[in-house]
């Protein structure tokens, strides 16, 4: 009885809730993307007419292109650093019986628990004190610290889900520790690792506070450039850039989520996950 009631409620209410949620999340994006096509020289919604001129302008403007390039390079480098530091950390922390593993994991998670503005303020003062004069590296390192937790978490979760007997099975068949990692364990967490990397990449690419505070106009990344154009002259170029940014983020997200969505989740018959 309760179950039928519940399933009735589910089938009636769930679509509504999901629709409202999606609408709520997507509405600003719709406004943003629509405004990018307006013919007026200012932001206007609903758009007045239709033109691709703002997109053309942005794509041909060297400052926007430089900003995009900066963002790309910085995001790639910081995720590279995060992966080099985070992957071994996750591998060690996911092992059973590692001393202080919970405390160390917590330590790695701190950057996402501290409000980023405080963290960046602290970094700013620290960099000043140390007289760090290469702002790009300052940003890269700061972003690496901020994105490492996401990478470590996803990789740890994937490793912890692996059947510990996989390792013992390989051991009993004569494989060395290195072989076990390279041939058995890592291939089974590669997908999760790459979705962690993409998540970290999107976060680093979109980050405003870190590059703004640490470098400002010296190293204008895309978000910094958007921020300054919103502050000084608001024209639909900003909307066009932002639309492109949304498009790229969405593409990365879809690419990394694709495998996870398709992955079978049943373990009922004792079959190891995945494989298909």
């Amino acid at each position: 009885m309760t179950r039928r009631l519940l399933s009735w409620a589910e089938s009636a209410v769930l679509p509504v809730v999901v629709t409202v949620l999606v609408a709520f999340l997507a509405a600003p994006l719709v406004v943003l993307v629509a405004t990018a096509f307006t013919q007026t020289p200012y932001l206007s919604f609903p758009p007045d007419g239709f033109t691709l001129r703002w997109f053309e302008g942005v794509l041909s403007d060297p400052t926007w292109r430089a900003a995009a390039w900066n963002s790309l390079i910085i995001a790639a480098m910081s995720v590279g650093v995060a992966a080099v530091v985070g992957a071994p950390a996750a591998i060690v922390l996911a092992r059973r019986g590692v001393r202080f593993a919970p405390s160390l994991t917590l330590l790695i998670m701190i950057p996402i628990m501290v409000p980023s503005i405080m963290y960046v303020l602290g970094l700013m003062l620290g960099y000043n004190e140390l007289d760090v004069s290469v702002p790009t590296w300052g940003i890269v390192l700061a972003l690496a610290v901020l994105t490492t937790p996401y990478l470590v978490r996803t990789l740890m979760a994937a490793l912890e889900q692996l059947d510990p007997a996989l390792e013992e099975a390989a051991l009993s068949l004569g494989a060395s520790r290195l072989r076990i990692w390279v041939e058995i364990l890592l291939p089974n967490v590669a997908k999760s690792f790459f979705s962690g990397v993409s998540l970290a990449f999107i976060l680093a690419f979109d980050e405003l506070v870190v590059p703004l505070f640490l470098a400002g106009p010296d190293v204008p990344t895309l978000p910094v450039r958007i921020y300054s154009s919103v502050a000084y002259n608001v024209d639909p170029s900003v909307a066009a850039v932002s639309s492109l940014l949304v498009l790229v983020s969405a593409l990365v997200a879809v690419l990394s989520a694709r495998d996870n969505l398709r992955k079978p989740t049943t373990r009922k018959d004792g079959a190891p996950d995945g494989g298909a």
Partner: protein
Amino acid sequence: MAELELVGLSKRYGRDLVLDDVSLSVQEGELVTVLGQSGSGKTTMLRSIAGFVTPSGGDVLVHGRSVLNAPINQRGIGIVFQNYALFPHLSVRQNVGYGLRVRRLPRHEIRERVDRELDRVMLTPYADRKPGQLSGGQQQRVAVARALVLRPRIVLFDEPFSNLDAMLRESLRRELRDLQKRLRFTAMFVTHDQREAMALADRVAVMRGGRLVQMGAPTDVYERPAHRAIAELLGRANLLDCEPATGEDGRALLRWRGHTLRTDDDLAGAGADPCVLLRPEYVAVRPGAPDPPAPNQLGGVLSSVEYHGSSRLAVITEPGGGTLLADLRAGPADPYLAPGDPVTASWPAAAVRVIGS
């Protein structure tokens, strides 16, 4: 020569003696199941043999040679894990060939041996599938093939069915038994399921509190448990604490709550307070009070009946408050007994087993 021999094997974790002086041997082609509850030491024993655990004392001999100092993969032991632990990203062929590849055998030899092994376990048509695309039975065969392809002397099974539902376990159990008989490998199979232990085994080793408490053919262990705890571990049991007495004819007999029990067992060594095992399936129940009173029967009231489909488990309460379990055999002609009915329980003298308490 025994294929596998344990000599006084012990394992201590801090103060806990998890494995206490276990000695046993497994003959070539034999399937020994190790039965015990969690904490009985059975898994530690298996892991010591495999090499995942270093024993604190004793020795493990494979075909007469101590393997304690040998690395895991050079002990002549194959292992089939819980949930099989097949490598999910590798095909069946790659799974089976993994151990050979690690050993750097020439490619054509790997191919030949894998093909032969797949053929033996009838998996050739599935060679290129991934484990996730196989049924439970097929996965089991891959796991067995992956172990057998290295030609081990013994295959250890670490509760491979423990996470499966009852129907599937039963069919996998039969399949494994057939496979083992056909390919004639020596096997040790650890389980906490008494039905599984008895159904699979040539011999059952019963573990309790880190010790090997009894080892023998399934019927021996079931019918002649060395200990009341073993009797309970292997199935439902009436354990009756009796007093020795002498009958009018001068023959020794037993008394339980005023009821007289006769047994075919020798009572000479039974001691002052012998314990009797009476399996519920040997207790016959009929309606009405006993008339006339006789040994090996008692009158009581049926206090409950549990329906099991193929049988029913009855609890009979005798006037003194003692209870007796009895299997009511199902059948269309079986008299319908309801709780509260007066009944008579009776059993043959051969079913009265005197065991150490």
